[in-house]
């Protein structure tokens, strides 16, 4: 199949970029989207041109590195999957495909399609941890966790921190990411001890990084490759409220 790509190119250290056209022919519909970009880059290198920079690592939807916006959709058109899990069969022959980086003030573009997501790391550092003494691993059964709570905590822990929630949000808000971490830890006994301080520190850091506020549109949850639920945000808001008293 043939695809007409419009790819965002932005040189390292420059504030501005623009779209460039690339036509890829003789593509197999069974190729993954990232394989197509690999192919393009090999062609570009062959022509002594600069390859397109894009983030990727595990290519199986677990690391959260890949971060493309395809025709306006972070991670492409499908629900519950990352762009590394997207295949060309999801597109039509001769289709025009716009490929952009995640766009947010807090995620500056480093080069082409790669953005700097260290704002997320700083939010994690600000409070998404539990303080425990190191040493021998404690006996697993010494702290009991209710099954339903464990399941719910796990559904929030599934967040891979890719930033698609920020990318799709009309406000470039990091609420879903922060809420997933806050909820995950607040639900577990190990995280309960520090939960008041945690939610405040993380929310403060989130604001400091320049993310927007939440308008409760729900687009984040729909774009999330791990389908983190919006209820995490309600829980974060509750935890925030309780932290005041």
């Amino acid at each position, binding site marked *: 199949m043939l695809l007409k790509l419009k790819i965002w190119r932005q040189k390292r250290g420059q504030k501005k970029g623009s779209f460039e056209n690339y036509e890829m022919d003789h593509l197999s519909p069974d190729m993954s989207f990232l394989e197509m970009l690999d192919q393009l880059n090999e062609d570009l290198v062959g022509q002594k041109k600069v390859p397109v920079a894009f983030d990727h690592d595990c290519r199986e939807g677990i690391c959260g590195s890949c971060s493309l916006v395809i025709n306006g959709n972070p991670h492409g*058109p499908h629900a519950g999957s990352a762009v590394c899990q997207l295949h060309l069969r999801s597109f039509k022959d001769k289709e025009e495909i716009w490929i*952009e980086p995640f*766009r*947010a003030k807090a995620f500056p573009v480093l080069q082409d399609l790669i953005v700097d997501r260290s704002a997320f790391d700083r939010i994690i550092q600000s409070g998404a941890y539990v303080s425990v003494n190191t040493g021998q691993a404690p006996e697993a059964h010494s702290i009991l966790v209710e099954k339903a709570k464990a399941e719910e905590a796990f559904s929030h822990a599934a967040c891979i921190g890719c930033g698609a929630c920020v990318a799709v949000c009309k*406000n470039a808000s990091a609420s879903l990411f922060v809420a997933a971490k806050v909820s995950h830890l607040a639900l577990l006994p190990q995280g309960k001890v520090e939960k008041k301080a945690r939610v405040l520190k993380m929310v403060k850091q989130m604001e400091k990084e320049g993310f927007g506020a939440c*308008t409760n549109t729900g*687009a984040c949850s729909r774009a999330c490759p791990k389908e983190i639920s919006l209820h995490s945000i309600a829980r974060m*808001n509750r935890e925030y409220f309780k932290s005041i008293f």
Partner: protein
Amino acid sequence: MRKWFFLSIGQKYLIGLTGLGLALFVLLHMLGNLLIFAGDKAYNLYMHQMVHGKAAFFIQVGLLAAFLLHIILALFLSVKNYFSRSEKYARQASGWKATAWYQKSLIFQGAIILVFVVLHLITFKFGTYYEVVYEGKTIRNLFQLVVEEFQKPVTVLWYLIALLVLCVHLFHGLISSFQSLGLSHPRFDFWIKKLSFGYAVFVTMGYVSLPLYVFFFMTEKGG
């Protein structure tokens, strides 16, 4: 205090609380106005009570404060949100991942509501002061003013448009405020959506019935 005014989650609590307060007001205001159907005496006496009752002053000050706080915070956050994306996308998300038009246009809905409220107050609260005497007591004849105003097709049309906007704003706003206040929960989600929709439609239908009824079935004499 700092947590309420300087962090967005606190600000959203306040937008949600003031929004819910305003939503309660629009319901009560609509129900009160339905007294139009009961005739001039019931309507005028009720409105007199509303404006001159013991609690009237406090309710009005509270309403004004809620309205202003809602607007200021909403405006502040909308500006901040706008600037948290420096470079716009060339393509908008579509299908499942798209954001609904009524969620993208909240601030514009708000702007229309604000213009509406100002004009509404000019027309009615600060409009022509007709008088009427019931049992020897002279009070304001708002009934006459309402009937007079809703004879004008342009006014009726403008009310219909503004009320539809309010309906849309209420629908998103109610669902959203449950979320902002941390009250949404998998078990209630279904009912929160249904209730918000029902509330918004009920309030709007109630209001819409007034200008339409007056325009089509009443004359300036109020018969």
